[in-house]
Structure formats: structure tokens, C-alpha cells
């Protein structure tokens, strides 16, 4: 398991602020990818990313509901206690390509969900606060259901991630 946290999270408010950022950012990045795929005429992958953004929105809402009575701290973007440049579930923009297939997009999503699950698992294990450990373990279990769902989806599509879509009108480099 890759190390996903930099330091233990010590309070429920701090944990929920992390969880909310993780889900909001992930939804936002999927939405950007969906928009970008639409602009580049890759409608199947756009639809998939749009769906994943929708899941992210509903997970963010779940975190907001949990945090309804908690005053969340404002954490500067660079001070979140995850070891990756953005939230663990955020797709990295550089992993996308305008010719990417649905299977490659699913693989990207699966990779992110695994990272999200690992983040929550590690927070649960490392936190000195019992409440944080309990809630983080619950969220890790929930993330695991997303991982399993994506694995099934991946299987259902009979995915070949090595498949390369041919660009019949590639970017022109002038003579």
C-alpha cells in the first residue's frame, strides 16, 4: 500500500475537512475531464467522467451531512496531510489523453478510488483520536465498495487497457 498520509489527523473536524476537500476536488477534476473530453469529441469517455463526477458530488454531500454540526477548519491547499499533490481521489490531469478509451478512464478511476480507500485506512490506523479512527474506518469501508464496483464494471466492459484508439485526424505539424 502506498503511503498516502504525511502526518496523523488528530481531530474529527480536521478529518472531515480533509474528507470534504478530497470528494469536492475529485468531483471537480472529473467534471473538468468530462468537459474536456466533450470538447475533444470523445463522448463515451466524457459520459463516464460525468458519471464519476456525479458520484463525487453525492459523496461530498454525504460528508457535508456528517459535518453538519462540526465547525470545519480552513486548511490552505498545500497543508492537507496527504502525500499526493492533490486529494488522493483526484485524477491527475496528465494521465488523461484525448484519445483515451473508456477502459483507460475506468482504470484511472479505479486507481484513484484505491488511493482514496488507502488514505482513509491509513488515517484510521494512525489517528490518536478514537472518533477519527472510527469514522475514517467507516469511510474506508465505503470506499472499498466503490473499488469493488469499479472492478466489476471494468470486468463487465471486458477491458483491454492496452487498446489504442487510432486518431484519423491527428494534430497537424506543418511542413
Amino acid at each position, binding site marked *: 500500500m502506498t503511503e498516502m498520509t504525511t502526518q496523523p489527523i488528530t481531530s474529527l473536524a480536521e478529518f472531515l475537512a480533509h474528507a470534504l476537500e478530497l470528494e469536492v476536488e475529485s468531483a471537480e*477534476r472529473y467534471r*473538468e475531464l468530462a468537459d474536456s473530453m466533450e470538447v475533444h469529441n470523445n463522448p463515451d469517455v466524457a459520459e463516464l467522467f460525468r458519471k464519476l463526477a456525479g458520484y463525487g458530488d453525492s459523496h461530498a454531500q454525504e460528508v457535508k451531512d456528517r459535518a453538519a454540526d462540526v465547525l470545519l477548519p480552513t486548511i*490552505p*491547499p498545500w497543508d492537507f496531510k496527504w502525500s499526493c499533490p492533490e486529494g488522493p481521489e483526484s485524477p491527475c490531469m496528465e494521465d488523461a489523453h*484525448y484519445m483515451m478509451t473508456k477502459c483507460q478512464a475506468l482504470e484511472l478511476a479505479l486507481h484513484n478510488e484505491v488511493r482514496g480507500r488507502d488514505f482513509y485506512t491509513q488515517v484510521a490506523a494512525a489517528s490518536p483520536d478514537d472518533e477519527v479512527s472510527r469514522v475514517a474506518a467507516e469511510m474506508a469501508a465505503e470506499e472499498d465498495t466503490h473499488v469493488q464496483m469499479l472492478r466489476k464494471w471494468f470486468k463487465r466492459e471486458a477491458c483491454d487497457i492496452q487498446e489504442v484508439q487510432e486518431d484519423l485526424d491527428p494534430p497537424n*505539424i506543418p511542413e
Partner: protein
Amino acid sequence: MTVSALKAKDYKSGIKPVWCPGCGHFSVLAAATKALAYLGLPKEQVAVISGIGCSSRLPAYIDSYGFHGVHGRALPVAAGLKAARPDLTVIVAGGDGDGFSIGGNHFLHACRRNMDMTYIVMDNKVYGMTKGQASPTTDPEWSASKMTPHGTGVRRFLPAAIALAAGASFIARGFAGDPSGLTKLLVEAIEHPGFAFLEVLSPCQTFRPEQKDWKNQVHPMGAHPSGDAVEAARAIQADDGMALGVLYADRLPVWQPAYEPRDSLEAIEKEFRV
């Protein structure tokens, strides 16, 4: 720090970027919106000015005042705006071709003038919008373009070194693959009183796919940023162009015209009436 009611996504205009999926500029947009939210800047107090190129589309995607101007001329437009409206936070955005070739002369004088603004250059070492020609920051041996089949044969432009020599008071380098680190640098650049130059290594997936490896090449600057120009010059010259962080920061006199406008808006409009 001001706690802002606005979130990063509130600073996005809703216009879908036309950048290629995988383009580093998406991270710059994310960093810019996060920085504005962190600083709690009201949208009407921010102006994003650009020239021409893929990266220069940034003003369209940020919900603030914006001006998508003429190739290479973002800095003079921004200087005019800042002179007239010193109360605005002026952010200038562009690419390596726009900023260092077509607008190279403006870059030198903007550094020297040290007006209080932030200049973000998204450097992918290629002209992307015009389909992949060598830019001033391209390595001399890059031969993938049919325009330069044997490479350019010309040593590359060194933005940080030139900015320092020209008198910029804040020089930093960020990486699109690290949006959070980039946000921090952008916040520091915006808060810096004077001309803040932020070079962002922003990979072009389409015409420079080999830049995907940049994530393995970037490294922290290491040494504490120097306010001593001579010391900073040595560090910048010794660097491989992939060091990230604040490379130089000093408090230098900021140029801002002190006089009040003599004419009313009505009088100015009258002059332009045909």
C-alpha cells in the same frame, strides 16, 4: 489570512476549456482559482490579462475581469491597467512564446519597472496553438518539429536568469504536476509587493509528450530563497531549469504613477468620439 466565503470553483467562469485533456494548464487554472479563494479576493478586484496562445485563454476560464489581448502584449496592457487602477490585483498569464519571444522586450521592462502585478508564464517549450514549433525555451537539439528538423541549434532562453538580470523582485518556478505547491507559490507571488514572475513548467501532452517525464525531473530548489541578487544569480545559473520554489525575493521600489487622472471619463470619451 482572510477566510473567504468563495470556494475555488466559484472563481471558474463555466466556460469549458479547449485545452487538450492532459494539458498542464488545467492545473494552473486550478491553482489560480484556489489561490484567489485562499486570499479571499473579491472577483471584481481581480483582473486577468493575457496575450495569445493556449495558456492565454486563462482569462476566459476565470470569473473575474479579464482581457485576452494581442500576441506578446499582455504586460503593457496590464501595466496600463495597474497604472490606472492600482487597487486591482492584476494577474498576467501567457506562454513561453508569447512572453519571451513576441513579448520578450515587454518582459524585460516589466521586470525593471517592478509594478505590483503577478506574471504567470506557462512554459511548455513549444508553440502549441500553432501546432508545435520550437519556442525560445526549447532545447537546441529538439528536432521533432518539421520546422526545425535538425533542432534549433540556438541556446535556450533562461527566464529566471533574465528576469533577475532585468530587475524582477520576485522569481519562482512551479510545476503543473504539483497543483498544491503551485497554489502556494501563486499566493506568495500575488502577495509580493512588486513584479512577481512565476514560471510554471506546464507539459504539452500533444506536441511534447516526452514532458510527461517532468514529474521525475523536477526537484525542490533546496536552498532558502535569497534576497541577494548575486547569490540568487549563482543558484539560478547552476540550476538545471527544473528546480521548484521561490528562487529570489527582495523588496525593491515599486513603480506606480502618483498623479491623479486629470480628465474625467466623459472628457476622455469625447476625445475618442468620431
